[in-house]
């Protein structure tokens, strides 16, 4: 059992909110130029919300994604990066974190995508003082905390009595709404519990 710095089954909204409000430059490892892949969706959405996005994919060097040239690896990035968004399988995350920890300055956040979780990589990053998010999508979390995702009937788990800004393409939306339950839901708790049950029975 790896000792993790914090609980990574559920996240407090303020933790996610703090990350998305503070990071500016995001390297997306495994970004795809194919426009039906989730990484393409997330890259485009985050770029439109004003983040400085850098696509990392050794198979795509020489091409660009929304005008941003692909780089082969984290070491090839020419500027400090705040967050690394890992769109690779869970096993690949450990080496990526090791690579990230050789950067100077260090990134502030390691974010592993929906379906990606690597507790060893997480522990390594946390030991170096980085914040870690696993098994979440920054597009979904940004859309949820700004309540933009409510257009799709999704439970944003936030409330606000303030007039919303008129959403236009490319604008940054306020994430500072009141969270309902600080991030967790009974459904999420139950999913975590089921996962624990499965692990214990395995």
């Amino acid at each position: 059992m790896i000792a993790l710095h914090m609980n990574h089954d559920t996240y407090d909204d303020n933790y996610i909110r703090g990350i998305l409000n503070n990071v500016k430059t995001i390297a997306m490892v495994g970004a795809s130029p194919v426009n039906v892949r989730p990484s393409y969706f997330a890259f485009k959405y985050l770029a439109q919300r004003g983040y400085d996005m850098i696509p990392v994919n050794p198979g795509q060097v020489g091409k660009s994604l929304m005008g941003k040239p692909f780089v082969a690896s984290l070491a090839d990035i020419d500027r400090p990066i705040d967050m690394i968004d890992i769109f690779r399988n869970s096993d690949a995350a450990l080496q990526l974190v090791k690579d990230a920890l050789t950067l100077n300055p260090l990134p502030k956040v390691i974010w592993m995508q929906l379906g990606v979780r690597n507790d060893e990589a997480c522990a390594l990053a946390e030991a170096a003082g980085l914040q870690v998010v696993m098994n979440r999508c920054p597009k979904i979390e940004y859309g949820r905390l700004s309540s933009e995702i409510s257009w799709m009937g999704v439970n944003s788990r936030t409330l606000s009595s303030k007039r919303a800004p008129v959403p236009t393409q490319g604008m940054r939306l306020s994430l500072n709404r009141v969270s309902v339950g600080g991030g967790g839901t009974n459904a999420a708790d139950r999913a975590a519990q089921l996962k624990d049950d499965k692990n214990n029975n395995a």
Partner: protein
Amino acid sequence: MTDRLPGFATLAIHAGAQPDPTTGARNTPIYQTTSFVFNDADHAASLFGLQSFGNIYTRLGNPTTAVLEERVAALEGGTAAVATASGHAAQVTALHQLLRPGDEFIAARKLYGGSINQFSHAFKSFGWNVVWADPDDVATFEQAVTPRTKAIFIESLANPSGSVTDIEAISAVARKAGVPLIVDNTLATPYLIRPIDHGADIVLHSLTKFLGGHGNSIGGIIVDAGTFDWSRDNKYPILSEPRPEYHGIKLQETFGNFAFAIACRVLGLRDLGAALSPFNAFLFLTGIETLPLRMQRHCDNAKAVAEWLSTHPAVNEVNYAGLTGNRYNNLARKYSPKGAGALFTFTLKGGYDAGVNLVSNLKLFSHLANIGDTRSLVIHPASTTHSQLTDEQKIQAGAGPDLVRLSIGLEDKEDLIADLDQALRA
């Protein structure tokens, strides 16, 4: 710092709603429009390709309806919801994402009669085969599971009997079978029972009843609990496999724990077309704001009327789970501690004729085929909805000749009791 968790009544008023961005309108406006302009060609392509959140066409989604969807999802503790034109539309839209011709689903035998019809006949022509099980005997659900089983369907409080289903026990069967548990929570509403807390993977409602509460609109809703792993095996290809309609997107991979709701919207509403009217969504939102107050009053009135009827000399038996001694009373205390709902049945010593007389002599209770109105409602199934059956079939269907069903409204309970008293004497 963790934010404070708002209570049910706060969510019933605020969840999903926010002052309008353009006008500042505090109440949710009715966006009575078919369609929404795109910023440019790229924005349009992003929306159609499911890359961006936004509005296209009211069959797929609408800003008024979206508030209703988020509100019900919040009240049920789900990840997302999709509103539909009726409760029946919610059922066909949800099951269309799960079943292929030749597949089976297990359903509780005690269901709303309209659902029994839909499952037995309309769904059969799609090649979806319903297998009936007894909600009072969990083993019958286990025995009904086959490799073709794709879902289990129950009602939390069952219509017309008002009986209480052991959701957790049946959830365990669904989990073991690797299929989602679908719970119709129409009669309970999330104020009384939150099925997701007890193991439901999908919750359905006829909004027409207690959620709307005022008998003014038809509608339904599908709530995704976000708990089911659709990609664990190849049983649910609509969620786990590339969708040709969307250039090969895999829905669960892309949308995570609200993928089922997205499927119901971008495939179900898009292709089956049973979208809710924005005007009806507005009426439901107004109704839901007072849901906690109304449901408690429904339950308190129902208990008072049931207790009074159970001592009346003309009455044989009152079937209300809220009464001590009722066979469902323990389940009601566990699952629905605030009250056992507004619906119950009772039998008359005078048989069929007494049922017909009662209905015709009531002055406040309305004789009609609906439930969950502010008004108290009555029906004598044997002379109406079930009149084509033989006496034996009527009894099997829980609609014997001497049985009367009440849906207790929000009037003064003394007036309801006085009306029943004069009608039973007449």
